[in-house]
């Protein structure tokens, strides 16, 4: 589902990723870990074409990102749900509208949007707050809105960048439960985190990034 072959990326003279090769299969739940600033976010950005590699090949859900045209990128991104580290919620839109936006982009019928958003908000336990604006929600609630938005269009791949960054242990547990549920429905999930408690004992593949390279890969 996601394949990197000898991918390198640098910003000016700063090498962020060097000779990265990895493969994540369809329906897999994998983690990407390493200290802050090691290039986890850059690697995720390469998956959804927010960054382009200097070298190497990337294939995501059948799209060869080396050959993809700018006008096709939106269609790739519709297959990739993203949980951003900084949430990227639109503060002038309600919870419902933030989640519905992902479907409006798909040109879905308003009745279907209502149905889909209602269902996903129930799943993340925020149905009762659908008319609230994000700034009135707690960090954990905002994170759940972002997850709802990422999963509502039923993407084939879901990426999450530090999804439990500022959350307490209990809320983090609830968030991880949501990801497991999404994965159980067949979505490939890749989570970037520096918090190793998230993947310990889960029996999932973990890619360790260090000094711009994949230092090791093992099942935790």
């Amino acid at each position, binding site marked *: 589902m996601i394949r990197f072959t000898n991918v390198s990326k640098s910003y000016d003279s700063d090498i962020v990723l060097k000779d990265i090769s990895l493969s994540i299969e369809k329906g897999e739940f994998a983690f990407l870990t390493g200290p802050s600033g090691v290039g986890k976010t850059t690697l995720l950005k390469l998956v*959804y*074409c927010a960054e382009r590699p200097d070298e190497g090949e990337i294939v995501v859900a059948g799209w060869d990102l080396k050959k993809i045209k*700018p006008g096709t990128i939106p269609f790739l991104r519709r297959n990739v749900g*993203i949980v951003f580290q900084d949430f*990227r919620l639109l503060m*002038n839109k309600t919870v419902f509208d933030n989640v519905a*936006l992902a479907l409006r982009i798909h*040109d879905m*019928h308003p009745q279907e949007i209502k149905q889909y958003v209602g269902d996903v908000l129930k799943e993340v336990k925020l149905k009762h707050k659908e008319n609230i604006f994000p700034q009135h929600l707690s960090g954990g609630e905002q994170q759940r809105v972002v997850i709802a938005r990422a999963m509502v269009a039923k993407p084939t791949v879901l990426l999450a960048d530090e999804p439990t960054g500022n959350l307490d242990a209990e809320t983090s547990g609830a968030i991880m439960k949501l990801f497991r549920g999404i994965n159980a429905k067949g979505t490939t999930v890749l989570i970037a985190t520096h918090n190793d408690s998230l993947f310990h004992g889960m029996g999932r593949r973990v890619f360790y990034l260090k000094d711009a390279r994949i230092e090791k890969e093992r099942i935790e």
Partner: protein
Amino acid sequence: MRIFLYSVETSLKSLWREKWINLLTVLSISIGLLIISAFATITHNLDSVLKRWSRDFGLVVYLNDGLSKEAEDTLTAFFRHDADISGIKYISKEQALEELRLTLGEQSPVLEGFEDNPLPSSFELTLKQERLDPVFVQRKASEIKRLNGVEEVQYGEKWLSSLNALANIMKVSVVFLGGAVFIAIAFITYSTIKIFFYRRKDEIETLKLLGATRSFIRLPFLLEGLFIGIMAGAVSALGLFGVYSLVMSKVAGFLPSINIVMVPLPLKAYMPAPLAGALMSFLGSFVAVGTIKY
């Protein structure tokens, strides 16, 4: 279609959210449109005066004294076949004298001093409306003057030239002023939409990351520019209607001759402003949104 409706909804919400800056933009554009509409109206009125005056405009062709009946008939036939001439009126020497006598009124006895009728017979020719261009009329007059039996050709060349020159100056002014105002309108909308675009930069970035296409992102901004232009055009059309009606009703009270130069404006005269405003605002927003890069 659903994306279009969503874009309409988004742009209307944005118009309301940013109502003060939008109001300022609408007023600025409508003032520009009102100025150009006022100029166009003055030109329209001047054109109407010219047309009304030109209805009575004609060439007077004086004939040689003692011209035979056959030669006069030849000239009549010639004028009748001329495609530029719409009316022919023959005035015999006797009719001319009678007309002069009527014009002189009480002073007509002065004509008794002449032994013979001193006035020549003549033709009064009316030219077709579309032919009332000073250069053409002058050429036509020279052409007719060269005909056998024609002594002299007279017409109001000074009046025709002055009025035509004035109308042309007005038309050129409208074109130049219109061009300047339209560029200004596009620039005003460009600035407003650019501000909105920058204010919503984060939102646009998020939309791009969620998989929105260029048209999905651009359409609300383009519609917003279009709505601003239409509103400004409507305001300026209402302003023109108000000012014009006021002048026609109030000024006519103490200056009745105003009705000679001011004609009621047809409904279609109010249409160009909103259309031009909409078009230029749309262009302004189109440039402001620019290319969205992925």
